[in-house]
């Protein structure tokens, strides 16, 4: 009995506690990201944004959540019920499970697996299922068209993202996310791999269906795309999943290019600030870029979106993989 406790139950309890310690701040961050988005865009458009509920509108996310929670869940008659209910769950769960491998500081990670980068890439490539299942199960033209568009878009941009990740991995020599960060102690990869950083950031915009690539939610033509038939908490799960994905992609950008939890300079006073705070600050900066882009650029046309993904980013990132490999070998910088 004591053995059962020491081998299974106690480690299990510790893992559950760690999961809670990751998920609670994450969900809070998701809630306040929605507020931050409205506030930032309002500031850029010389408005005030939400300022009625609570002090400076700080209780607005709570009010929004409550509103969605008490609404009625409507399941269309012609819908495929199981898949219809499954789709938002898939989206939300996939947005959360990816956080298992994100390192917040050296050793501060739930699962320090050897193939962390591949795990994240696999999880993000499965995000398309939530969308495509929702579109098909709704049994509605608009939802279906929106889902098809979205799926094609997400699959296209994954490929250039994959090549960007390969470039970073060439410079690291490992698929472990902690090692990826530790390889950036001298210089962040955003400096030597600046073009890849830009490509990766734009691809994450497309991958998370954010503006200017928010065609799946083109309210002007598809009355909001794949989630048009969803209401109440099923809709809220899509919404939460989308914002959790934004934070996840920002975290991935931070880890791959902006040095993760490392301080920008390796001396005091920068090193006095603990790693997780640097990590959060960098994620917030990338998230601000997401919002800034949304407030600045108009929506892409669909054929231009596909052209950018397949004819510009794909050859460019492929070329850069070769260039990086040649440079690493020629100058003897290949990591051991």
């Amino acid at each position, binding site marked *: 009995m004591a053995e059962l406790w020491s081998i299974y139950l106690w480690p299990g309890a510790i893992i559950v506690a760690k999961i809670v310690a990751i998920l609670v701040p994450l969900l809070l961050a998701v809630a306040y990201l929605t507020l931050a988005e409205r506030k930032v865009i309002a500031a850029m458009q010389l408005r005030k944004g939400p300022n009625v509920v609570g002090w400076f509108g700080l209780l607005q996310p709570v009010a929004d959540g409550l509103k969605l929670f008490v609404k009625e869940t409507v399941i269309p008659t012609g819908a495929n019920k199981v898949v219809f209910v499954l789709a938002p769950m898939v989206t939300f769960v996939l947005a959360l499970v990816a956080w298992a491998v994100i390192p917040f500081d050296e050793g501060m990670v739930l699962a320090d697996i050897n193939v962390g980068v591949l795990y994240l*890439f696999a999880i993000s490539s499965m995000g398309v299922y939530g969308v*495509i*299942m929702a579109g098909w199960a709704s049994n509605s033209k608009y939802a279906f068209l929106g889902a*098809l568009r979205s799926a094609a878009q997400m699959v296209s941009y994954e490929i250039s993202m994959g090549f960007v990740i390969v470039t970073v991995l060439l410079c690291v020599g490992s*698929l472990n996310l902690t090692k990826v960060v530790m390889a950036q102690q001298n210089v962040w990869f955003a400096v030597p791999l600046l073009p890849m950083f830009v490509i990766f950031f734009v691809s994450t915009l497309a991958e998370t269906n954010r503006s200017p690539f928010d065609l799946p939610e083109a309210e002007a033509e598809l009355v909001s795309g794949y989630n048009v038939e969803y209401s109440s908490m099923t809709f809220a799960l899509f919404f939460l999943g989308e914002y959790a994905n934004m934070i996840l992609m920002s975290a991935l950008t931070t880890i791959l290019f902006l040095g993760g939890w490392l301080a920008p300079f390796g001396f005091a006073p920068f090193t006095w600030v603990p790693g997780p705070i640097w990590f959060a600050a960098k994620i917030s900066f990338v998230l601000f870029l997401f919002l800034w882009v949304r407030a600045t650029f108009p929506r892409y046309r669909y054929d231009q979106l596909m052209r950018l993904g397949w004819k510009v980013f794909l050859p460019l990132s492929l070329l850069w993989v070769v260039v990086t490999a040649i440079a690493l070998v020629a100058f003897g910088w290949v990591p051991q």
Partner: protein
Amino acid sequence: MILSALAFYGFSTVAIAAGVMVISARNPVHSVLFLILAFFNAAGLFVLMGAEFLAFILVIVYVGAVAVLFMFVVMMLDINVVEMRQGFLQYLPIGGLIGTVLLLELIFVVTSWAVAPESGGLLAAKAPALTEAHNTEALGRLLYTKYIYLFQGAGMVLLLAMVGAIVLTLRGRPGVRRQRIGHQVRLRRDDVVEIKDVPTGTGI
């Protein structure tokens, strides 16, 4: 470990059940979803064997890309399940033959392990020990040194297949107006705008 045994039986049971559901589900989209579930459990079995690289490549390639395309095609086809069932008996002999051959091959492979246990050791000996290199690194060392020609050959075959598919489906339709972005960017104001001073009541 009890946990890994439990996980093994869980993954394999769900994988087999999902496999059965792939061929027995009435709705083709459900079949694809069950296929994805089967892929997942296969990836779980890979992880249990310590082949985490293969597991995640399986998920990325099959679940993340191939099955998405399956879904695309199946969702857009208007498949009549009743009509498809009618051909069942007609295709049963050849399907049964292929199934029997596969089953026999599987039996031969498994029994050859049992009859000649050293044959499995021959396969395993080529990879560096797990303590020396992770399996990603071990795979890379083998693929890019010993099996480089086979690896490149497989790559060329896939490239050829891709080019072939494009050649077969590409058709140049006349009369399509395409956007030429270089041309648009090169345009100057004088090329497209002309200002005329038109006197009132006369027109151009």
